[in-house]
């Protein structure tokens, strides 16, 4: 079993993944370009582990052990010691390209390079390295500490061994990994599109109100949240960006076409819960 995990980007996802990996017994090197981000992330992890202890989700020794296993690192080259690197920096192909080119120079030849990207191609990221066979997608969900799913995404050159290794790693972290090939939106972000897309069309056509649609989907369909409540929670801008990305990557397949209502809301800055106004009003 690979022992040392390097994590790049100590944001929402990177910090969460670091915590999960450390709780599972991996040694974690957590790196960020921003010292402040690194510090804030360590604080968040501490707070979260403390809460896990209080609620009995983790024992005191698990939590303190995990904390000692996470080493914050400002120096990029320190990641050279990792057996597996999980990249969770910003979703920007240029940034990721630079990171993978640099990683290629410092890691051991057999190290695995994973990315947590939601929308970029694993194959194109892999093509920047000398070892595309060891580049793989490891797509966690937010928040990583709670969400069980990990999509393991195989680029066109990713080896079976690489896929197997990260699969075992995800299992060791207590996750439920699924396999997926390198296609736009992978499984979840693609298959979920109609949930929002058809709901927006129904609203736009005046078939029912947003409240009504949410209620129908919950009470008649048994979903935990309706599409509009969910979009408000995710953020209208985030949801719109994912839709656009899947739509464009599928060369404008009409099933994925974004809806003008989304764009209008993004332009208006009514982005859901985080702005206090979306499809609903929040206090």
């Amino acid at each position, binding site marked *: 079993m690979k022992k040392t995990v390097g994590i790049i980007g100590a944001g929402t996802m990177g910090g969460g993944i670091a915590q999960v990996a450390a709780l599972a017994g991996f040694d974690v090197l957590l790196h960020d370009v921003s010292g402040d981000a690194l510090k804030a992330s360590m604080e968040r992890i501490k707070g979260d582990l403390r809460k896990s202890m209080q609620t009995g989700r983790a024992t005191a020794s698990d939590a303190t052990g995990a904390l000692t296993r996470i080493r914050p690192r400002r120096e990029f080259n320190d990641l050279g010691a990792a057996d597996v690197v999980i990249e969770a920096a910003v979703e920007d192909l240029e940034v990721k390209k630079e990171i993978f080119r640099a990683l290629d120079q410092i890691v051991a030849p057999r190290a695995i390079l994973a990315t947590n990207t939601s929308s970029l191609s694993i194959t194109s990221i892999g093509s920047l390295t000398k070892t595309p066979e060891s580049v793989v997608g490891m797509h966690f*969900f937010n928040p990583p500490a709670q*969400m*069980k*799913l990990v*999509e*393991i*995404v*195989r680029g066109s050159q990713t080896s*079976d061994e690489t*896929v*197997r290794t990260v*699969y075992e790693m995800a299992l060791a972290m207590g996750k*439920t990994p*699924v*396999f*997926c*090939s390198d*296609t736009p939106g*992978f*499984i*979840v972000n*693609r*298959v*979920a*599109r*109609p*949930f929002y*897309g*058809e*709901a927006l069309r*129904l609203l736009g*056509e*005046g*078939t*029912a109100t947003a409240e*009504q*649609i949410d*209620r*129908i*989907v919950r*009470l*008649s*369909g*048994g*979903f*935990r*949240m309706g*599409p509009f409540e969910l979009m408000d929670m995710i953020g209208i801008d985030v949801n719109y960006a994912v839709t656009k990305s899947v739509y464009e990557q599928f060369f404008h397949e*009409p*099933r994925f*076409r974004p809806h003008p209502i989304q764009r209008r809301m993004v332009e208006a800055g009514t982005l859901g819960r985080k702005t206090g106004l979306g499809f609903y009003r929040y206090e």
Partner: protein
Amino acid sequence: MNRPRDTEAKRCVFIAGESPLAEEYASACVGAGMEVAVRFNAGSGGKLPAGAVRRARAGKKDTLGIELTNTSRETKRKNLADMDRALPSGTPILSASAATTVAEQSAWVRAPERLIGIAALPSLLQGTLVEIAPSLPAGRQAIEASQRFFRELGKETSVVQDSPGMVLPRILCMLVNEASFALGEGIARRGDIDTAMTLGTNYPLGPLAWGMKIGLEQVRAVLEGLRREFGEERYRTAPLLSRGTLEGSAERSAGAPPTHSQKQRGNRP
């Protein structure tokens, strides 16, 4: 003023339609203490729930007619015309409208003012709410009568505008369709697609399992209704659904390493 017929002492419901939708409604009605007569469409099979009787056509005594056919417009049209002729004027007719708009059905009956569309698809009656879409000329009486009926079944109602697939059938069947496209393209294994959707987005059931529960023929009928009405490429049916099975390509996917998936298949849920 006439008393609305459906408030008379004992509700007598006549149901015509396909299995399993007709059974589901029949047993819910029997369970709510109603008198239930059923006619299953020819060739659709169907098991009569205990307490219900078989009857060839609606009669003067019936206080409510329910037409439950999604997969054949021809049969639906005939069932509705028969009911329209046999039921006294003012007796409401509820009609499954997941695959055919209420507007289109309105042309098939002489008294469209008593026609109320319902979002009926197999298994949806397990929920606690039913969407209804009144025909354009429907009066308050017919709408309230259908709401009373569903209240007696313990369901609340939500009144939506007439639109192909209404709300939930449209969203649900498009999810099944997208999952079927993904499966057909081999991006992931069947079980992995369902697992991803239940764990990644908290859906109560994976879309492929859901499609099987509803019945692929029903899903197809809803998608064809959407396609017919909107004329858009967006609503074309996934090849696997057209073929009528989710088996086959299911176990092979470009994502999973072959030997590993072989080994794992036995012990994965």
